[in-house]
């Protein structure tokens, strides 16, 4: 079943017109018929009552004189009232006195009069009325008349039906003609709307046929289409822009990926190059170690051979030159050794173990004292200098620093060397202090460069590689090295290793375990 909502506008309009017409007619006809039937009923009642009263008056005499004949004559006047079926008079005792009946009437009269009153019975109106004269009841009038209300109702219904059909027909024809004015513009809009939706063509416009609400609707609809058209345009433009951006981004991503790949290639290439360089460096170190020493040994060896084998042929001067050559050879040998050490320090894997720097320092000092037993140096090594690091490399650090201190205090009367540590906020700084030659702080930044020397070789011998090696070892441990000095008063070398309070406790524990 179609719901009301899905009916077409035209049908709805018809429905409204017809329903309105129908209801209006029904109400109008109903009111008229109701009024007419009520008037008929009332008129009939009052007419019959009057008739009964009149009959009462006219038959008073006949009743008083007990003359039924006159009474019958009196009743016969009723033949001029076709609506009256039958009539009768009863005397005071209630006996039938006179009667009248219309020709077609066959029903019997009531035997006894009833009390005053009216009643409708069997499509007839039945009426009884006392005849009273001077306060005395003389008899009763009985009237029976046609009550045609139902016939009237039937007639009216027939007429109403006819009127309704006719009126509805006219209304339908009118509606058919009129609806075009109302529905056509609306249907046109609907048509265009359907078109727009199915073809997505927002450039269509509805034609304005009237300037009523539908006209306003057309305007609004056209405005809306224009707006949609504009928005769609914008949306398409923005979509296109977005698509372009996505494309660009994708291109950029590809570019990034390509660059990444290139970078990885380059990293691989560089790594390979580095590995090659490392291998070459190792090969270089190796050949330095083997091959650079051999010629030195030859120079030194054959120089010595000259001195040994031809003592009488060599003048004093030649001997001195040979000595200088051999000193230079020795120095060259030390330089090679130093460079190899520096290279080795960078190359070898770092081992981390608990180390007692004090113990190492005492060992280093012992070696120095053994090598130069004539030197009187006051050495003090603090206790509890625990650290974590590569024992061999840290040995090299102290060996270099303490040997430097030893060397640069050579010209002091009371040479002093102190090896200790300072703790500050959980960090430990180790130091090697001497009261030796010191150096000018202006050149402090050159101290740790390879082959950098702050003293003339004639004053203090050395290769200039020791501190560079020390610095590299400290850096490999994640620490820092620096120095403070004053010319003629001494120098202090400080260094840290990555080390904090927690580590200190742990190292101390480890150390006890390894020692125990």
């Amino acid at each position, binding site marked *: 079943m179609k719901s009301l909502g899905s009916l077409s506008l035209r049908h709805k309009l018809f429905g409204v017109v017809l329903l309105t017409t129908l209801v209006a007619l029904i109400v109008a006809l109903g009111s008229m018929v109701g009024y007419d039937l009520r008037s008929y009923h009332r008129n009939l009642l009052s007419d019959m009552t009057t008739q009964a009263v009149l009959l009462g008056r006219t038959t008073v005499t006949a009743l008083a004189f007990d003359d039924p004949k006159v009474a019958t004559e009196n009743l016969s006047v009723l033949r001029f009232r076709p609506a009256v079926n039958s009539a009768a008079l009863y005397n005071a005792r209630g006996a039938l006195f006179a009667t009248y009946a219309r020709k077609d009437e066959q029903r019997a009269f009531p035997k006894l009069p009833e009390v005053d009153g009216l009643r409708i019975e069997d499509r007839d109106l039945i009426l009884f009325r006392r005849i009273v004269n001077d306060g005395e009841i003389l008899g009763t009038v009985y009237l029976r008349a046609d009550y045609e209300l139902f016939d009237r109702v039937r007639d009216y219904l027939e007429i109403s039906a006819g009127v309704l059909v006719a009126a509805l027909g006219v209304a339908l024809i009118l509606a058919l003609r009129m609806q075009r004015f109302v529905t056509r513009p609306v249907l046109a809009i609907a048509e265009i709307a359907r078109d727009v939706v199915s073809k997505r063509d927002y450039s269509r416009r509805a034609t304005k046929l009237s300037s009523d609400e539908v006209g306003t609707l057309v305007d609004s609809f056209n405005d809306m289409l224009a707006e949609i058209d504009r928005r769609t345009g914008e949306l398409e433009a923005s979509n296109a822009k977005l698509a372009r951006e996505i494309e660009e981004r994708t291109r950029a991503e590809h570019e990034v990926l390509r660059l990444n790949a290139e970078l990885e290639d380059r990293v691989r290439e560089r790594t390979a190059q580095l590995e090659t360089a490392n291998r070459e460096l190792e090969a270089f*170190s*190796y050949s330095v*170690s*083997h*091959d650079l*020493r*051999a*010629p*030195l*040994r*030859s120079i*030194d*060896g*054959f*120089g*010595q*051979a000259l001195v*040994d084998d031809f003592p009488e042929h060599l003048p004093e001067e030649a001997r001195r030159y040979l000595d200088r050559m*051999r000193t230079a*050879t*020795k120095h*060259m*040998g030390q330089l*090679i*050794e130093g460079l*190899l050490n520096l290279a080795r320090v960078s190359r*070898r894997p770092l081992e981390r173990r608990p180390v007692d720097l004090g113990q190492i320092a005492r060992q280093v000092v012992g070696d120095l004292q053994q090598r130069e037993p004539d030197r009187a140096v006051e050495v003090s090594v603090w206790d509890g200098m625990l650290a974590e690091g590569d024992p061999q490399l840290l040995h090299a650090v102290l060996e270099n620093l303490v040997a430097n201190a030893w060397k640069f205090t050579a010209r002091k009367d009371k040479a002093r060397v102190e090896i200790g540590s300072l703790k500050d906020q959980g960090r430990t700084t180790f130091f090697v202090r001497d009261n030796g030659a010191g150096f000018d702080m202006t050149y402090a930044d050159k101290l740790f460069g390879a082959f950098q020397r702050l003293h003339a070789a004639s004053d203090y011998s050395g290769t200039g590689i020791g501190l560079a090696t020390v610095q590299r070892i400290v850096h490999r441990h994640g620490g820092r090295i620096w120095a403070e000095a004053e010319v003629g008063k001494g120098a202090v070398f400080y260094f840290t290793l990555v080390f904090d309070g927690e580590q200190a406790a742990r190292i101390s524990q480890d150390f006890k375990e390894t020692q125990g």
Partner: protein
Amino acid sequence: MEKTILLVEDNPDDEELTLRALRKANIVNEVFVARDGQEALDFMFCTGKHAGREGQAIPGVILLDLKLPKLNGIDVLNRLRSDPRTKLVPVVVLTSSSEDEDMLRSYQSGANSYVRKPVEFPAFAAAVTQLGIYWMLLNESPPKG
């Protein structure tokens, strides 16, 4: 029979200095010189230009340089140690190298001793002298099998 020494050395200077140091130390044992790794093996196994040396005594000590043409010292050492005839011959590695790795590989390959050639001749001469005295006079060669 007097013990002999096989010196495997490619550097003629080092060869002469070594021989001179031995002479100066009055060590008169015969010294054979091989100038590359292959020659050292030929000498030991009586092959190549040393064919026909069969029956002669094997050296009381081999002084072996590591950096040699053709076969290097470690290769020579490995070959000597893998042959039953030379498995027990005392070998002293005498080299310029102080690399830990060389030292380790030498001992792993069965060297009896590792001596670094000092740059200064007096120290070098002292080392060679001590070696000569030790291996020629003090040390007892492994019994012949």
